[in-house]
């Protein structure tokens, strides 16, 4: 077994542990317990941070996309979503299309 395989195996176990701990803790609490509200707030805040970082300061391959193209993708996607009253798929494709077009223009 290589180091990469071992790392994957241990991470998979850790993921199972995190998910199981969450279900176990929630199972012991009332649905309206403040801890459950806290957990929801932390999850939603994490998601919002993830989106902001992906647009403002991404890592990896996404960093090779110029900033204006990332912002255009987000703005056009959200605009299409609002204009089309919540048609996710069309808004998603519109946003990605805007990213590709602006990237081609900006270079």
């Amino acid at each position: 077994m290589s180091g990469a395989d071992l790392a994957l195996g241990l991470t998979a176990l850790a993921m199972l542990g995190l998910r199981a701990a969450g279900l176990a803790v929630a199972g012991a609490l009332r649905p309206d317990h403040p801890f459950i509200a806290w957990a929801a707030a932390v999850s939603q805040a994490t998601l919002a941070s993830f989106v902001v970082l992906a647009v403002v300061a991404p890592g990896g391959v996404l960093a090779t996309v110029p900033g204006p193209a990332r912002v255009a993708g987000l703005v056009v996607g959200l605009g299409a979503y609002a204009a089309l009253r919540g048609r996710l798929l069309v808004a998603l494709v519109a946003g990605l299309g805007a990213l590709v077009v602006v990237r081609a223009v900006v270079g």
Partner: protein
Amino acid sequence: MIPFRTGLRAALGAPALAMGATFLAFGAASAEANLAFGWALAASLLVYGMAGQVVLLQLAGGPVAGAVLGATAANARFFPMAVAIAPWLGPHRARRWLALPFIAITPWAAGMRHLPLRDPAARLPWFLGFALASWVAAAAATALGHGLAPHLDAALRAALLFANPLYFALLMAAELRVPAPRRAMLLGAAAAPLALWLPPAWGLLAAGLIGGTAAWAWGRRA
């Protein structure tokens, strides 16, 4: 069976496309890093959280402990996510465990949005239908990406990777009308710069914890 099928069908639109695009890019990146097809597939199915998968991919060549710790920190959100979704997974507490392997951003976000609108007995089957379809889509996209790696240039992969954050931005936009998620999202977005001072694996965890806790405290005072 009907809620299961409704959930399955709900996954096979924008959610599968957004997730598929990201997992396709992950499959291609793992092929490029000389990681085996089986490794990439197992990472997508068993870790099943892109932030952690990316950290694992980047650190897989180095010390094992660093890679495991980094990937776990990057996906630590699974704990609060499991806590938050558990009450919506139907009235049978023991059966909720069927959802265990599928607690990840995409099914979680869809579940938090749709499950409260459904009949309690229909919630778990709906979630399982959605989650299984997403899981299979993620695996298929990873396999495809691994095979297609030589044909996917960096520009295309970058565009594919943007599908995921954009999809979550759209989902969040829909939730902005509800006060509690709105507070969490605004403060989470405001806390994002904190992540820039920390190593990437820990930054997201810190921003989410600080922004989310502040939003929760604000909600209790409101």
